């Protein structure tokens, strides 16, 4: 059984633009999946199908093996299981204080107040924003707002968290902090799906990568498998991670046969091996 599965998913907007053209995607429980693709290929549109905000024009979406039912109870159930963190936190945070915003989801689940309070506290602790409860969102930085947005979803205790461009607009430290947070959440058993075009961060964290282009999935597999198909990566307007690119140049132009790697750790190991062999 998959946490989220889409079967031959098609979607067109009312004006006729076809955005998704037959998406097949399977996400296992406990995985960290990255959806890699440039801007405007339908990543956000696909995500909006995962909790029933959008209804496919053809095909179906299954959550924990069951097709989504698009009625009030069905949608509430699905939204309890799958939480989406949107790209711009200002589109998501609407309440005048941090605590009220984080409490919004759990209150909608109809939980008792003391349970909601416990969840708000835990969610804010998990994202490292203890003591920010009564702050208004406009007194926070971009990275902090992103954390509030994530806490707002965490507090609903979903089994899957879907994040649209979680590192967009953040400084390098902020971006890797968010990725580290997601990695920790994933270790606690939450299935995580992110969309990104940050190819340098993906190989470090993701178990499984989908490359999306023009409303279709071009390739699927482990970061190693996906990035070894350089042609597809370039076709999808993406590039190799910087370190992989360096190894590629060393291989091709300088004829130095270092083994390919996609993270700094891998390349360092391969480079050391090569140096030891030669010297």
């Amino acid at each position, binding site marked *: 059984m998959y946490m989220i599965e889409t079967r031959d998913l098609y979607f067109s907007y009312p004006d006729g633009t076809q955005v998704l053209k037959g998406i097949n995607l399977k996400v296992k429980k406990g995985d960290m999946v990255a959806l890699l693709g440039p801007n405007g290929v339908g990543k956000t549109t696909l995500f909006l199908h995962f909790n029933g905000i959008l209804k496919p024009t053809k095909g179906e979406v299954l959550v924990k093996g069951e097709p989504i039912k698009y009625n009030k109870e069905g949608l509430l159930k699905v939204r309890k299981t799958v939480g989406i963190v949107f790209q711009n936190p*200002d589109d998501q945070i609407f309440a005048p204080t941090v605590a009220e915003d984080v409490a919004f989801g759990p209150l909608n689940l109809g939980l008792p107040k003391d349970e909601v309070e416990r969840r708000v506290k835990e969610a804010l602790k998990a994202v490292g924003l203890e003591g920010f409860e009564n702050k208004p969102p406009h007194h926070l930085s971009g990275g902090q707002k992103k954390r509030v947005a994530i806490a707002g979803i965490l507090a609903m205790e979903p089994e899957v968290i879907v994040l649209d461009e979680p590192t967009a607009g953040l400084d390098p430290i902020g971006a890797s902090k968010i990725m580290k947070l997601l990695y920790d959440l994933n270790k606690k058993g939450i299935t995580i799906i992110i969309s990104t075009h940050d190819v340098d961060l993906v190989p470090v964290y993701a178990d499984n990568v989908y490359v999306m282009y023009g409303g279709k999935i071009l390739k699927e597999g482990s970061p190693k498998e996906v990035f070894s198909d350089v042609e597809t990566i370039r076709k999808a307007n993406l590039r190799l991670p910087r370190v992989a690119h360096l190894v590629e140049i060393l291989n091709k132009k300088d004829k130095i046969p270092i083994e390919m790697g996609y993270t700094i750790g891998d390349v360092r190991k391969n480079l050391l091996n090569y140096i030891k062999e030669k010297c």
Partner: protein
Amino acid sequence: MKYSIDSIAFTNNLKDVNPKLKVLFSLLTLLVIVFSKSFIAPLLVFLISSYLIIFKAKVPAKVYFYLLLPAIGFGLFTVVFMGFWYGSEKIFSINLGFIEIGFTKEGLNQGILVFSRMLGGVSTMLFLALTTPMTQLFYVLRWLKLPKEFVDIAMMMYRYIFVLLDEFITMKNAQETRLGHKDIKTSYKSLGLLMANLFIRTWEKGEKLFITMSSRGYDGEIKVLKEIENPKLIYVIGIIIFEIFILIISILTSNIKVF
């Protein structure tokens, strides 16, 4: 943005005082002032509020007076205008060459009363605005059983004022970079474009917000976690005694007139 009312409300020295007390104090005082027939009671309230704002809440006096300025300007205008509009018993007149404007005793007294009420009223409202974070006021509004829709919309307005303000500043800077405000004519044109654009952005934000809220199980009603506890009875009684005191002063001095 250093001295915006909002940031002062969040940082002043009275921010932790129970907001229910502040609302009670402001509303009752406003009521007493509005019905006061004496100009002395509102002036007394003005002095007390100003004292509370400047010395107790530690709001910079400059900011406070800047916020008072419109009220003072409008108040002076009222005194002059009412002076020659009402009553019949002229006490002095000004000759403007082609026309003679006479000021009446009744009108001037009436004007001064309105002026003092204005000062008193604006200062009590400023007291509330400068010392109480909006976020706390929303709880009080809910507690006062105002219609849910009203409070929900007010809450979102408060949140999105700042989001849209950011958008406004970004767009204005973008226009100025391209000389969109080089003279009056282009300024008007650019401002029009900016407003139109801002309206569309607002609309888009609204649609997006609805999606994100639905995604967290929104069903048409915003539920709220916290409540503000009731203040100690002794403080409530204190405020009521204060109001009675002002009321008595207002009645005792209702015959005192400037002219």
